[in-house]
């Protein structure tokens, strides 16, 4: 998670919340939530090295594949479920989103925006799958198997009857406002606060 993402997510989490961090990596974010927001967190990750790194920070972490459906977590078990920049790596992003809003009163999701003008230019002008500093891997060798755009994501939320509470966008330094006004074209990544409709 970039520092900007982190700042936004931190500001969205009420101190003392119970947080489930999906794809918690080395636990740095969860440790920060604990230290700065007094959060009771639990991390989920599949990688043994990440597990050890998280445990060494004094965190609780569960080795589990998010794609297996997160059945170990019960409905309304957490205040917030976080999935930072991992949506595009999931086998069934729509199922995971549904589970997230079931498990948590709220969920926070961030992802790189494939509708960004640079991606479009790469695909449109070069005719090749976009590669950049943020997406450095070849199409055949990337964990990112389900890229989407801001518009795609919002349309999926509406299909799944998920309410968008808040949206934040990350854009280049000169494009902050453009990113806010025309997120699908100028946001390099987007962060959403979502919840089950009617909850």
């Amino acid at each position, binding site marked *: 998670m970039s520092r900007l993402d982190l700042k936004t997510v931190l500001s969205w989490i009420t101190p003392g919340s119970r947080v489930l961090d999906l794809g918690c990596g080395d636990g740095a974010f969860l440790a920060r939530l604990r230290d700065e927001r007094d959060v009771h967190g*639990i991390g989920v990750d599949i990688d*043994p*090295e990440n*597990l*050890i790194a998280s*445990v*060494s920070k*004094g*965190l*609780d*972490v*569960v*080795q*589990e594949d998010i794609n297996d459906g997160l*059945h*170990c*977590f*019960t409905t309304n*078990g957490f205040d917030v479920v976080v999935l930072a920049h991992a949506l595009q790596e999931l086998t069934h992003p729509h199922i995971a989103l549904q589970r997230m809003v079931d498990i948590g009163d709220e969920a926070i999701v961030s992802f790189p925006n494939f509708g960004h003008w640079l991606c479009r230019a790469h695909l449109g002008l070069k005719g090749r799958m976009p590669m950049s500093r943020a997406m450095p891997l070849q199409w055949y060798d990337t964990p990112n198997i389900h890229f989407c755009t801001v518009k795609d994501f919002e349309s999926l939320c509406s299909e799944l009857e998920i309410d968008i509470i808040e949206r934040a966008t990350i854009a280049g330094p000169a494009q902050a406002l453009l990113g806010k006004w025309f997120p699908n074209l100028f946001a390099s990544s987007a962060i959403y606060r979502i919840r089950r409709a009617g909850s």
Partner: protein
Amino acid sequence: MSETTSANSVGLVSPQTAKCTTSFTFANGGVLSSHELVYETYGELNSAGDNAVLICHALSGSHHAAGFHSEDDRRPGWWDLAIGPGKPIDTERLFVVCSNNLGCCDGSSGPNTLNPETGTPWGGGFPQPQVKDWVRSQKWLAEYLGISRWAAVIGGSLGGMQALQWAIDFPHWVENCVALAAAPGLTAQNIAFNEIARHAILSDPDWHEGDYLAEGTLPTRGVALARMVGHLTYMSADGMSDRFGRELREGSFAPGDNAEWVFQVESYLRHQGSRFSTQFDANTYVLMTRALDLFDLAADHEGDLIAALSNAQANFLVASFSSDWRFPPQRSIEIRDALIAAGKPVTYANIETDNGHDGFLLPNPHYEQLLGEWMRRVGPS
């Protein structure tokens, strides 16, 4: 430098005996008017008494978890991998206690010790213990040692089940709980393997209804076979292929050779069986496997594991071993999920290994690192 004095070994250790003179009633009704527990300790109990850790042993384990009994001792205690200065269970910080379960055969009162009322070996007359009996007897030992709370109770396999039972039965005694390669209860398949082992022992002509010591015999054939079956279930198919393959120890595959063939794996199993058969008491094997069969964490809560764990006050580390088919990862996941549902702090890892159920006893960098990092939260900081 010899192994007994190497920097990360607890070095030379001596078992000690605690004598309990009050009577002990087993869950199944048997009574001991007095009994003894044999135990070892490593490290020092601090003045605040908040660095004591209890290690629970598995089916064939003992109180000898780490270090050596003499300079010539070539085999350290059964969990020397994890216990010692600078090791995951760090004896420079923690006071480690490991006791031989009541009814076992390594010095604690059991079938091979004398019944004080008759002056003859207990034999088949020793009461059937259950896991919760061991927990109660260990609580007595803790108080005897001046300990009022465990910074952690830790075990693998049967020992892991015992650690979980501790956390449920005496929640305020257990600050942290580590259950490795454990299960919330035995499956029909688990019980079936235990029954095969018992059947082997009970059909040995030297069994004498459990009173073989009085007859001056030992049912070594039965115990060896029981151990061979048991040992087989502790290893994975891939692990066995890697270690033994189809290699012959005796004989050859040459055409016309009709000598006695002995595959490496046969020779290994025979060796394991025969060594065990003279070291381990047959009655104890029967009692221990039965204690396993009877173990059911949720028994007092109408099968509701979440309810059973809801009173626990501990932080939990649950770990399984990917190729373990004796107590496969799914069984640890049942424990993990119940703990999560009960709102308990839990860390869970499934360690990738070919070592099968024995994985919790064998070297593995991820396993040792995970256990070591997790253990840093145990005891005074």
